[in-house]
């Protein structure tokens, strides 16, 4: 588990200076375009573009390694399960069947292997852009830019509070877990069977809930005292003004989305299988 909710890495690249709202639009458009296709060629192009953007942002690789491996591990596991559960799924997409690896109950065919490769690249395509977003966007600035995108400021503030309180609550959760462990009510493997561990975990829920409710009381009182929510609009200390480069990026996003939709409708409809 990572220690802090804010993965933000300070820097001064093009992407660090970019408006948070614009980066969110970029992330969403990128995700939407990726969702449209099941085509290896497009994913390779998007992946290369994404990685070069990450390189431009100059985020230390050490910081990103964990998330990258998490996703790679996920993708690998996912691929293995697809191959084991539906070894001939690829045929339903291509109509052909080229047996390759016998499994005993069935045979993995070339089409499914190629499908799994495509799907894995699809997931990996989403990774660089997500990393770019989370490592170059300051949480407070993000809340301000959400508001600029038209999200009501109360909602944006809730997001901001969530980011702010994750480290505190994880700490508290750990404290409660440790306190329970000292009484012999731990939740790790040595503390008994699964049922016992679940029961011990359930003992943590109520104190954690109680302390969160206390947090809610004190934070909302503090905010009320400062007059939160009395005006229909709000300015942001961390707000940024959109620059010309931001507008260009938004235009590029619109272009990317249009090209994606046109490609989907005209050129590449389904699963691309060259063999």
């Amino acid at each position, binding site marked *: *588990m*990572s220690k802090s909710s804010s*993965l933000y890495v300070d820097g001064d690249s093009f992407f660090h200076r970019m408006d948070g709202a614009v980066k969110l639009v970029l992330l969403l458009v990128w*995700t939407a375009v990726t*969702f449209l296709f*099941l085509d290896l060629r497009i994913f390779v192009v998007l992946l290369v573009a994404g990685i070069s953007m990450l390189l431009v942002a100059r985020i230390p690789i050490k910081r990103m390694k964990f*998330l*990258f491996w*998490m*996703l790679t591990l*996920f993708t690998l*596991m*996912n691929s293995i*399960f*697809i191959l084991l*559960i*539906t070894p001939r*799924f690829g045929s339903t997409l291509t109509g052909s069947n080229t047996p390759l690896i016998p499994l005993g109950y069935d045979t993995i065919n070339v089409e499914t292997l190629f499908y799994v490769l495509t*799907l894995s690249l*699809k*997931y990996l395509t*989403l*990774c660089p852009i*997500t*990393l770019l977003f*989370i490592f170059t966007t300051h949480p407070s600035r993000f809340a301000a830019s959400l508001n600029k995108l038209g999200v*009501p400021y*109360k*909602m944006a*503030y*809730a*997001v*901001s*509070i*969530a*980011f*702010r*309180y*994750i480290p*505190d*609550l*994880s700490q508290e*959760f750990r404290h409660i877990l440790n306190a329970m462990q000292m009484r012999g009510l731990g939740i790790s493997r040595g503390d008994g069977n699964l049922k016992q561990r*679940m029961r011990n*975990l*359930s003992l943590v*829920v*109520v104190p*954690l*809930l109680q302390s*969160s409710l206390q*947090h*809610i009381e004190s*934070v*909302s009182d503090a*905010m*009320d005292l400062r007059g*939160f*929510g009395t005006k229909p609009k709000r300015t942001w200390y961390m707000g940024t003004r959109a620059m010309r480069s931001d507008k260009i990026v938004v235009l590029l996003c619109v272009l990317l989305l249009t090209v994606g939709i046109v490609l989907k409708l005209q050129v590449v409809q389904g*699963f691309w299988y060259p063999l």
Partner: protein
Amino acid sequence: MNTGIQGSGSSGECKGGFLMKPSIWKWSTRTVVTIGIGAALYGATSWIGIPIAPDTQLRPAIALLAIFGALFGPVVGFIAGFIGHVINDFIQSGTVWWGWALGSGITAAFMGLIYLSKDFNPKDGVIKKKHLISFIIYGVVGIFVSLAFSGLFDIYAMGEPNNKIVIQVISAGLVNLAVFLILGVPAVWAYAKRNRNNANLTVER
């Protein structure tokens, strides 16, 4: 001086504003903070998981969704679940699984429907057997509706094979159900009971 409710039996009465619950559409400061802290709580505890099926985990955090839904209503539950899931994905998994994030929100929204029943008020210790039963029904429906949604999302947006998704959805559904019944329902009950004891205190003069 009688400050509140005697027990689960006499809870039908509503004295003035004391038992009034705020409308689910009103966004007070408290709503904002509740959503924020609820999302943080869900995000902070989502990392605990026991893997049980292809990329599917037993996540005790589901219980917290149930509690926040029951205490603060479906709207707060939905938004807190969604934001919490997205933030957790940002921190933990390298990409956001939008379908499953919306699924978390939908689960919490369904579980929060119990908040709408008029005489249910765990904050003042009012919870009856019929509330518990409808809470369980809402929860069960919510878990399966949300997983059906997430599964269909994966099939259509991601192009995952149907059979694999069916296995994932069913196993995740059963596990979430178990967590909901073993952790979520008793926690709401325990919370209400604890507050009922408080409400029984009288001031000696």
